[in-house]
Structures are given as C-alpha cells and as structure tokens.
C-alpha cells in the first residue's frame, strides 16, 4: 500500500513542480542575453571596430559566443582583466594584430581651414560627434568624440588630427609620488646592460 502511495505521490509532486517551473519560464522569461550586456558594459565603447566587429556590442555578442577577449586595444590590459574576471577565462596578452594600447587618450580635431566639406567623416563617425553639411566646414564635438580614428581614413584632404586632450584645472589630478629608490641617486640600480659592458 505504502509503495503505491509513494508511486503516486512522486509523479504528483513532479507535476506540481513542473507546472511551477513552466509557469516561471514563461512569466519571468529573460529578454535578450544578460551576459552580453555585462560584457558590453566593460568594453570602452569607442565603437572603433579594431576588434573587426562593427562596434562594441557586436564584439560583446561575439565574446559571449566564445571569441577571444584580447581584441580590444582601446580597453587594453585593464579591460582584458575585467573581462577575464567576469567570464572566468584566462588573462591573455593584447592581440597585436588588432592594434596597440595607446598611452594617452586621443581626440579628433579637424583643421578647419582645410576642410572641403565632403561629409565623409560625418558618415564614418560611429557616435555622431562631427557636425557639418555638404560644402560647409565640419567640426568635431570634442566632448562626444571617443577617439576611434574612424574619421581619419576617409578624409580626402587629410585634415583630421588625432591629438591628446589638454589637461585643465578641472581634469588635473595629483601624480603618485616617486618611490624612494628613484629619488636617491646612490640607490639607483645600474642597468644589466651597463653592468655587463
């Protein structure tokens, strides 16, 4: 008798829980892939396409699908590290094939007297940071520029420069003090090459 009870009770429970799970999977269905959003949040959003994807989100989707995490030069080592932490993958050195990490952030500037107003850079800009119209001078909205370089190539008169952002009183910050070893001349370690020669 008890065995029968068990035989009936278990499928009954299975049915109930199955029902709950089925309901939850419809009611609380996750739209889209949340991991893609998390990866996308770590990418620098320059939309430069150096990873050979047309923008950061497509690369995030590719990473979620298993692509390597070391193809983003603007993000550099820091981004690779964060992605590795998020995804539980190994930290890889930056893939040199896709470019090198820049020391300082650069911003596009148009040498305005030379601009012929061809609108090619406007079409290339992934974040709509260039203003202008056909046969009118163009200019870059500096605050919106991500420094992706994509406008430099299409310019037929080469009037776009990538320049570092000027430090202002608002953006200036203190530098880390130099370690004592660098301050005391006598404690400087002679370079190995010098020591050998």
């Amino acid at each position, binding site marked *: 008798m008890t065995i029968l009870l068990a035989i009936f009770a278990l499928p009954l429970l299975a049915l109930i829980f199955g029902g709950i799970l089925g309901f939850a999977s419809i009611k609380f269905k996750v739209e889209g892939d949340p991991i893609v959003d998390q990866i996308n949040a770590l990418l620098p959003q320059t939309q430069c396409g150096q990873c050979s994807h047309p923008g950061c989100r497509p690369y995030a989707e590719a990473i979620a699908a298993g692509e390597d995490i070391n193809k983003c030069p603007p993000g550099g080592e820091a981004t690779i590290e964060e992605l590795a932490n998020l995804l539980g993958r190994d930290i890889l050195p930056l893939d040199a094939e896709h470019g090198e990490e820049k020391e300082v952030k650069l911003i596009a500037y148009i040498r305005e007297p030379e601009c012929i107003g061809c609108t090619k850079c406007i079409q290339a800009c992934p974040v*709509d940071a260039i203003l202008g119209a056909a046969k009118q001078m163009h200019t870059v909205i500096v605050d919106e520029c991500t420094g992706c370089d994509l406008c430099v190539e299409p310019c037929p008169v080469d009037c776009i420069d990538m320049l570092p952002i000027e430090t202002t*009183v608002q953006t200036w910050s203190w530098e880390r003090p130099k370690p004592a070893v660098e301050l*005391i001349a006598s404690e400087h370690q002679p370079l190995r090459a010098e020591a050998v020669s």
Partner: protein
Amino acid sequence: MSISRKLYSFPGGIHLPENKLQSLGLPIQSVPLPDKLILPLQQHIGAVAKAIVKAGDLVKKGQCLAQPQGFVSASFHAPTSGTIVEIAEHEIPHVSGLSGLCIVLQPDGEESWCELQPIADFNAAAPAELVEKIRQSGITGMGGAGFPTSVKLSPPANAKIETLIINAVECEPYITADDMLMREQAAGVIEGVLILTHILKNREAIIAIEDNKPNAITAMQHALTGLSEPHCIEIAIIPTRYPSGGEKQLIQNLTGKEVPSGKPPLHVGIVVQNTATTYAIHRAISHGEPLISRIVTLTGEALNKPGNYEALLGTPIEHLLQLAEIDNKKLSRLIMGGPMMGFALDSTELPIVKTTNCLLAANSAEYPEPTPANACIRCGACAEVCPASLLPQQLFWFSMGGELDKAEQYNLADCIECGACSYVCPSRIPLVQYYRATKGELAQRSADLKQSDHARDRFEFRESRLAREKAEKDAKRKARAAASAKAQAAKKAAAALAEKEGGAPATGGETDMVAAALARVEAKKAEAKKTEQKQDVESTTEQKEAVTESVEAPSKPQDPS
C-alpha cells in the same frame, strides 16, 4: 555666556607647533593699490564664471565683472575702479600650476564705487531675497574650498536646519586671518550670524573657536553681550587639536553627530559657514558691498614684517610679499594656504583669490626639503591619528598597487587630506599624496565610465537612426514600385477596354500606322524618282525631312516602359 556647552570629541588628531604668534603682532594692515589686479574666472568650486566685460572697458569699484554660469558657480566684482586691460590666460593659484582665463584690471586710483544697494533691515527681507543678494555678491566659502555660499544656504524645502555652526576654529598652524578678523570686526561677524539665522531659521547657532585664541574669544563674547535683541547664538570653545576645523570633525566635536559618508552636513540638519564668509555676508547685506577683498595672513621666517593684510582680490602675491618685507635670500619655499594642506607656488606673479587665507614664506629650517621615504614598518601610527577613522596603511597599499576598487571599499573618498597621517609617519611616507593620486584615478575612472555609457547611447541611437532611415527608404521605394505597377495595370485595363469596344488593338494600330507611314514613304520615293529629273536636290531633302517627321509622329504617344 554659554561657554559650558557640552563638547564631544572626534577620533584621532594631532598637536602641532602653532606658530601663530609671528603674525599676531600687528593689527590688520591695509594694502596700497597694486599696478594691476589679476582676477581668475574660476576662484570657486563649480562652473567657471562668464566674463561680462571686455578689454578696454572702464569699470567702477564693486561692478560685476563675471556672472555665475549655472547653480554651483559664483560671480565676482571689480575690486577697484579702473580699466580692463585684457581677458587672457594667466597662471592661477592652483596646485597644478596650470593657467586659466583671467580678467586683468588696471586700477585708476580713484576708488570710485558703483551704486551700492544695501538691505537696510534684513529682518524685514525675505530669506530668498537675502540668498539672492549673497549670490549676486559673489560670496564663496573663504576657508579653503571655495564652495558658493548661496548654494549652501538654499537647502531643499523639506530639509530642517537645526544648527548653524560658524567655523572660527582656524586649526592649521601659522594662519591667523580669522583670529584677527574676530578681534577687530567681532560685531560684523555677529551681524553676519544673525543674517544667516534669519535665512536658515535654525534653532541654535554655535560659533566654534579654538582655545588658543583668547583675544578673539573675548572680543566675540563682548560683541555678543552687547546685542540688544534676543538671539540663539553661543560661543563654544574647543580644545586645540588639528584638524578640529575640518567640517565633519567640527560637527562631531560640537554635536556628537557623524555626517554620513558622501552626504553634506545638511543631512544631519547642520550648516557650517566660515568666519570670514560670515563677515562677507554682513558686508554684502548691510553695506551692499560685494566680495572684493579678504584678509590674508603673511607669515614665515623669510618675512621681516609678518602680519595680516587686507588685500583686494587679484592683488599679485609679489606686491604683498614686498609689503611684508620679504628676504629672498631666506626664502626656501612659498606656500599658499597652511603648512598642512597648502600647496607650494612656483611664481610670485599669481594673484590672491577668494580662498587665499595665508601665504607662508618659509625658510629652509621651517620647511625643509622632504627626505626620501622609507618602507612602511606597519606601526599603525597613521590609523591612530586619522580623524576620519580610516585605515591609512591599507589605503597606502591599495594606492601603491593601483587597487582602485579596494581603495573605494575602504572609503578613500572620506579622507579629508588633512595630512595628520603623513605628519606622524616615522618612515616619512607622503601618504596624502598617494591618496590624492588615487582619488584622481578614481575620479578619472568614473568619468571614463560615464563617457563610455554616453558613447554607447549615442552609438545605439545612431544605429537605430540608420536602421530607421533605411526602413524609410525601403518603404518609399516599395511605395513607388507599387504605384508604377498600379499605373501599368490601369493602362493594361484601359487597353483591354479599348479592344473590347471594337477598335483595333492599340499595338496593332500602331504597327498599321508604321506600315502606312512606310508605304507613304515608298510612294513618295517612287514619286520622287519620277520627278527627280525635273526637280532639284533641295526639294528632295525637304521631302525626306517630312518623312522623318511622319515616322516619328505616331511613336510619340507610346509608353516608354
């Protein structure tokens, strides 16, 4: 006299050699007009002010030269009458040594005031009117940070201000500007407190003074007893311990309340104002004078005549140093602000700004070159003196290792950069400099994050816009194709109808017409052959042209499709 106020305490703190007597020997000195005044557009925290004068303009003393841009910003006024020479980049007194836009004013020596509009009876005025007057007078915190005062005095409607604290602590060594101000202008300071009380409708007002300023305490108490009207002001004498003048430390010391991390004192119902700011408010309301001068302590062993000087804003430092009889041979370092939180200056061409409370011209004995740091021996002395109860040693490791997240978790943002930890460090590690650098990196990181979010929004918007444009183009093309298909169908239907009605099919008719035309041409040719001998060449050409016309004519109504 309520000197019996119960005091609390704050953690940490250090006792420093005070060095205040040097600059207390003389009363407040007036400063003769310099050759030029340099007025930076940014003398405050917040948005840069916008110049409303141009080079060549003649201005009166007290005339507004620059307007605030945005809520957290401040205006400033002409410290004396004269001519605007230029508005140009000039070195400004900032720790970075960078330059910024400055208005340069050449005094004409007449000191002719513009029309001043004092508020005769502040008790009859609406608080909002007084706050606006304070904003128009360009008053910012004069203790060091330079936060626009009107912002502090405009709490949200639901905030209830219990306590107003006047910070007359002046805990940094050497500085005596507030001390001298209270000694000489006690009544004005008290008047300022009454104005603030009227604005904030606070229950109590506490003027906090360190016990190393007995003369200032006496003067203030004297001024307070002289008040005829009832008031809620009391003077609290607090023990001398650096940094008791830090805003959060002072609140904790006086009320026992701790201001939560990242929140303003308003959060616990308290507003703190500096003494000099309070006096400036009195000048602005009762006399209508905007903030155009301030008291600066000139001190240090390199000066032969140290003291407090009432200098116009924009006065070049060199002018003041000459007045205080500087001995350039003794000078080893020139510091703006106090020895603990001030910064070294590279140039003496810099001007005095609203926040300049002290110029310290130190000789090499007072301010020796920093010796190189040794390794941290983990003694923990820094943690004992930290007034914000942080773990300076841990923060130091995180800063060294660039562990920004960890530093943030250990509340680096609550560090007030007082320098007590560096002062007690037996290994002479410049701890505060590490914290400042790390704070800068954290700020940079959050700015980058904000920018990348913004870039993502713009990128996604662009993508959606391009998709929309493409869809619109597709839709248009489809609509055009549909329209032409419809027209075609209509034509076919019309042709079918014409066929039904008995006429020859349109296409057949056309062929017939062509055939007829060709026949006509043949006939004409034959006729022409017959008459060739009789007629000349010209007439033939005429006929040929006519033929071409007749051939073309029937093809005209044809549909190009």
